């Protein structure tokens, strides 16, 4: 598909042309940046490193009603078919890759109707990273500041205009709908975008060579590095709730008077209740086991199942951890111990 160009001042009309779809853009709520529906005709500003709350919330909501029931009636009413068309505008390539990784799980042996329905109804318009954050390490885990995996359209900031690369026929139809704002990109624009991508890649200074980690990790089960790295962990949910590839959930029946609902809510393997058995026994009693499990799941178990590391190197868990537990520091200790 050939490249197009969108000048920045036309951004507002381009977005308006996305039709009746709900457009989600990164916006500040308090200090935190997250994807929220665009309201009115305001123009999304796109000069940000990355949102603290990943876009996964729209396709895998933190709280989602699965079915409703009433006292006395034996049947339940499933809550599906309510998903709306959504356009994610300004998604970073790592978050887009994360969706592809999470797709693998939710469409694995059993298609998850709630997730799949929302995924099919969403189109993702990415924005290539020009200024990666200090903790980004997407290049070490198979991603990149301009990777196109999971994206329908990729924008690259060229100064006063964006290079628009439709990648899928979804993206293509999107660009057709807004064709009068777009013009054919010149060869020079494509090279300029290429240069932006290479520079961005060079700016990523945090690296880790993941070679040997997926196979070696299970062998380090009783290694004392887990004790050392997890000692200061608080057991909170930040590194899992804000990780774009984390997908664990808990199901709860919530009753209100005489009717109720079964809903799915996020859960975190770092919480002790996550593995608390009804008997009170907990196979992962302390944070050492839980940290070990979190790393093993992302860098070993997921790789066995879907041969891709369930981490896109977005760096959120590093910058948001209250006690500065750094996944790259853990992985480097793992590498030493291999």
């Amino acid at each position, binding site marked *: 598909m050939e490249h197009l160009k969108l000048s920045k001042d036309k951004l507002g009309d381009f977005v308006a042309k996305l039709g009746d779809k709900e457009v989600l853009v990164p916006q500040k*709520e*308090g*200090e*935190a940046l*997250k994807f929220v529906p665009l309201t009115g005709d305001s123009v999304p500003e796109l000069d940000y*490193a990355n949102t*603290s*709350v990943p876009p996964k919330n729209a396709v895998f909501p*933190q*709280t989602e009603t699965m079915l409703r029931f009433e006292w006395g009636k034996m049947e339940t009413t499933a809550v599906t078919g309510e998903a709306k068309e959504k356009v994610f505008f300004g998604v970073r390539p790592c978050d887009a890759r994360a969706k592809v990784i999470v797709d693998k799980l939710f469409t694995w042996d059993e298609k998850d109707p709630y997730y799949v329905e929302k995924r099919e109804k969403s189109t993702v318009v990415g924005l290539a990273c020009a200024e990666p*954050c*200090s*903790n980004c390490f997407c290049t070490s885990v198979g991603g990149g500041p301009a990777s196109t995996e999971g994206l329908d359209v990729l924008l690259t900031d060229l100064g006063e205009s964006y290079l628009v690369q439709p990648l899928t026929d979804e993206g293509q139809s999107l660009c057709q709908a807004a064709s009068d704002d777009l013009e054919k990109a010149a060869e020079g624009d494509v090279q300029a975008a290429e240069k932006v991508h290479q520079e961005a890649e060079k700016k990523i*200074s*945090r690296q880790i060579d993941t070679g040997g980690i997926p196979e070696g990790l299970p062998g380090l089960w009783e290694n004392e590095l887990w004790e*050392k790295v997890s*000692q*200061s962990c*608080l*057991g*909170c*949910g*930040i590194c899992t*709730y*804000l990780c774009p590839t984390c997908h664990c959930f*808990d199901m*709860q029946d*919530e009753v209100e008077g005489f009717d109720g609902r079964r*809903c799915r*809510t*996020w859960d*975190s393997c770092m*919480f*002790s*209740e996550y593995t608390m058995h009804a008997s009170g026994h907990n196979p992962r*009693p*302390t*944070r050492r086991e839980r940290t070990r499990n979190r790393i093993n799941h992302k860098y070993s178990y997921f790789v066995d199942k879907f041969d891709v590391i369930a981490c896109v190197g977005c760096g959120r868990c*590093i*910058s*948001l951890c*209250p*006690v*500065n*537990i*750094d996944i*790259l*520091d853990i992985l480097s200790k793992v590498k030493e111990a291999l």
Partner: protein
Amino acid sequence: MVDLDKLRTVAKETVSRDDVKYLIGWSQGTFGFRVSPHFVKEPEEVDSLTFSPLCCNNLATYLTLTEKNPVPRGEEADTRKVALMVKGCDSRAVVQQLVEHGVGRDQVYIIGCPCEGVVDVKKVEKKFGELLEPVQASWENGKVSFQLPGGQVESLPREEVLAQNCLTCRYPNPVVSDILLWDEVEVKGNDDYEDVKELESKSSQDKWAYWQDKFTSCIRCYSCRNVCPLCYCEDCILDRLNPTWVFRSTNVAENTAFQMARAFHLAGRCIECGECERVCPVDIPLMKINRKLYKEVHEKYEFEPGLDPETKPFQASYRPDDKEDFIL
């Protein structure tokens, strides 16, 4: 004045004592302005210990956070002391834990570090951006100076960089300690609860509008609860399902109930270390809630928690002449 050599020598002596299990202090973080809690077991590891305006963690939380692994058959539980480095506010947290028997006085060896206020990382990262190479910082007569990557030194006035509750801090010197590393600092702060009064004066609708917006963004990651040195229930009632006080789903109703329960359980206990607000990933002004109750308890009952280990806990005592201004 901060004396790092003394800090390290004292740490070395402490760790090599046979009645001390390990020492908890701060060490340089893995990037930018970060500092991470550091558990020192062997004397050689003391060299990475430090004390600087970046040491914002309240380490007292680890006294009660360590989960107790089942003791293997035939072995004895390790009841040696835990050595802890504490700033002024951290020591008040330890005092409150002593009042509530969360930890025994004989189970903790307290190393006091008088503190001139710690940096609010968000303020500083707004100024210098999120840097990668670790940054050194230190207090320089009333200012905070940063050794930025590339050798450049930048020193800024306290008001611009320190955390809000450090600017109004009235207890910079440790309230309890086994050893004081350097001489006490002068108390600069004074607290007239400006932020609380300003919100109190608003109408109910405005107040609710303010909190509704904040509580809607809460993702219930529980970092505010887990970082708090005084939230150390084995099985928090807000996690429990039988009975269910608060549903797991995140909406304004459950989040408000969660935040109010957390705030109420800290009434007359919170010592204003500011950690909950620091760690909140979605920036809810949690100190603004805690300080409201702190002000009520201070003004209505002339009580400040975490100062005297002998007092009875505030919520487990009463005076027959307590104020009652709203009772029919």
